[in-house]
């Protein structure tokens, strides 16, 4: 046996200030080993930390009285002003076990661009991405804000910040903009204001809210989005404050249930009230509930629909048929039973409807190798899920170097 006395290279312990390139070094290696640089990859759900920029975002509030009041918070810094996060957010690091789960705190040397852009570029490099769709981190619970107008003020400021301060620096960054869904007129105004803004690829409803998505007031909003060929996304989040989830005494329990519960409710209303028949060209996507809930709901609704068809008269097909036409982000993908996962992929027509999403830097993020390593996918399906389905959904340009390898996604 040969022996080496050479001093080895030492790898550091990862903590909450470690550079994200170092945290994701093994993802970069996975990408190289699998030749993922030859794949067009779109990360459809990224939350590159916006917490540090919150005072900057507050400066974009258009109501002067609200803007000035914001800076009475946080000892005059505005930090955390007006946000209505639940305590659950503080549990994401599993008691400090997942350092980045508490947010990326690394120092950023590149001051030529906003911190979020610098961090985004690191993730793009490490995860071998071509595009990254940016989602608001700070606003995920805003639909539950007790001050209704605060949702409008903060989301308008946030959307301005993304469009004016972030996206112009990096063409690989795209955004789905927050809709203040609790105030219909403001939601419609948001679409009119930002439709066509460079880098805006869709609009977003945060699912944690008590607004029935089938209410008649929303039909004009959906028509606007359908007409504009803009996807609408429903992004799940946790909610530890309703009658059911308050019974759950551990974060794991609440997180596992509540990220699915809100989208179960919204999807059911969407289907049973026939919205796919009313807006057949509207692209609808469901974000961050994982995948296992979809075949569950398909079977549940199909079974009951056949017995109670009179309660869903707008439907012309089975509920599962409509659900199969929608788009789903994969993260956090449940993989403990690959047979069930393969069945899920089949049920949702993953080859054309599933979208890779990392959710980086959240504690349950998924790397692109997660898709690549699935044993039941052929190369065409991998390419579609990793990026080409997103290109079709968001009308993203696929660079020439990938074209010879393009797979044709179903229309």
């Amino acid at each position: 046996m040969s022996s080496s006395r050479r001093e080895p290279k030492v790898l550091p312990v990862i903590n909450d200030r470690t550079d994200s390139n170092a945290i994701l070094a093994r993802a970069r290696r996975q990408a190289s080993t699998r030749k993922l640089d030859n794949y067009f990859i779109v990360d459809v759900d990224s939350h590159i930390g916006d917490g540090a920029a919150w005072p900057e975002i507050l400066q974009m509030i258009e109501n002067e009285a609200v803007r000035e009041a914001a800076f009475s918070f946080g000892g005059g810094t505005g930090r955390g002003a007006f946000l209505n996060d639940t305590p659950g957010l503080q549990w994401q690091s599993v008691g400090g076990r997942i350092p980045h789960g508490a947010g990326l705190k690394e120092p950023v040397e590149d001051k030529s661009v906003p911190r979020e852009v610098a961090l985004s570029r690191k993730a793009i490099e490490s995860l071998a991405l071509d595009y990254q769709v940016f989602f608001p981190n700070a606003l995920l619970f805003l639909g539950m804000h007790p001050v209704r107008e605060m949702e409008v003020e903060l989301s308008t400021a946030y959307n301005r910040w993304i469009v004016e301060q972030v996206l112009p620096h990096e063409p690989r960054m795209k955004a789905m903009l927050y809709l203040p869904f609790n105030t219909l007129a403001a939601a419609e105004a948001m679409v009119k204001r930002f439709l066509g803004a460079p880098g805006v690829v869709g609009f977003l409803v945060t699912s944690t809210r008590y607004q029935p998505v089938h209410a008649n007031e929303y039909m004009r909003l959906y028509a606007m989005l359908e007409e504009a060929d803009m996807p609408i996304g429903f992004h799940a989040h946790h909610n530890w404050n309703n009658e059911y989830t308050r019974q759950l005494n551990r974060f794991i329990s609440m997180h596992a249930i509540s990220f699915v519960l809100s989208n179960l409710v919204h999807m059911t209303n969407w289907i049973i009230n026939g919205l796919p028949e009313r807006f057949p060209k509207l692209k609808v996507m469901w974000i961050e509930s994982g995948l296992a809930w979809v075949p569950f709901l398909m079977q549940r609704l199909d079974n009951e629909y056949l017995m109670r068809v009179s309660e869903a008269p707008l439907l012309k097909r089975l509920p599962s048929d409509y659900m199969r036409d929608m788009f789903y982000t994969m993260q956090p993908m449940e993989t403990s039973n690959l047979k069930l996962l393969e069945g899920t992929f089949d049920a949702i027509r993953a080859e054309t409807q599933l979208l890779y999403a990392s959710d980086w830097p959240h504690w349950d993020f998924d790397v692109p190798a997660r898709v690549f390593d699935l044993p039941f996918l052929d190369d065409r399906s991998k390419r579609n899920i990793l990026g080409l389905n997103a290109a079709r959904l968001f009308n993203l340009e696929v660079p020439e170097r990938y074209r010879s390898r393009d797979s044709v996604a179903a229309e």
Partner: protein
Amino acid sequence: MVDQLQVKPGREVFVAREADIPDGERKVIEVDGVEIGVFHVDRTFYAWRNDCPHQGGPVCQGRLMKRVEERLDGERRSLGIHYVDGALNIICPWHGYEFDVRTGRHAGQASLRLAGCPVRLRDGEIYVVLPA
């Protein structure tokens, strides 16, 4: 998929002098593309590949924390969650998978294991044998 090794398997490589890794500490090294964490626990050295079986995260670069248990009283009522003295887990910093640093077994699913490497101690120095 196992990331391809770029080094001749079976080769013995130097890690550190024994005195350089105090009890309760670890050293994670990279040799020709192979990453290995060497842990010192109760005067014994253990070596594990820095490759989490979950998503390939840098498991050996995570926090070392005691395992926890939920204690029950005589009537099986919960007394809450507490550390277990003497039990030490290495926790993957990517997603929190926890492995017993002595056995390499996952704290919740024993069949899920870290890949180990033989450790050789010689003249106060620690060597590991790279995986075949």
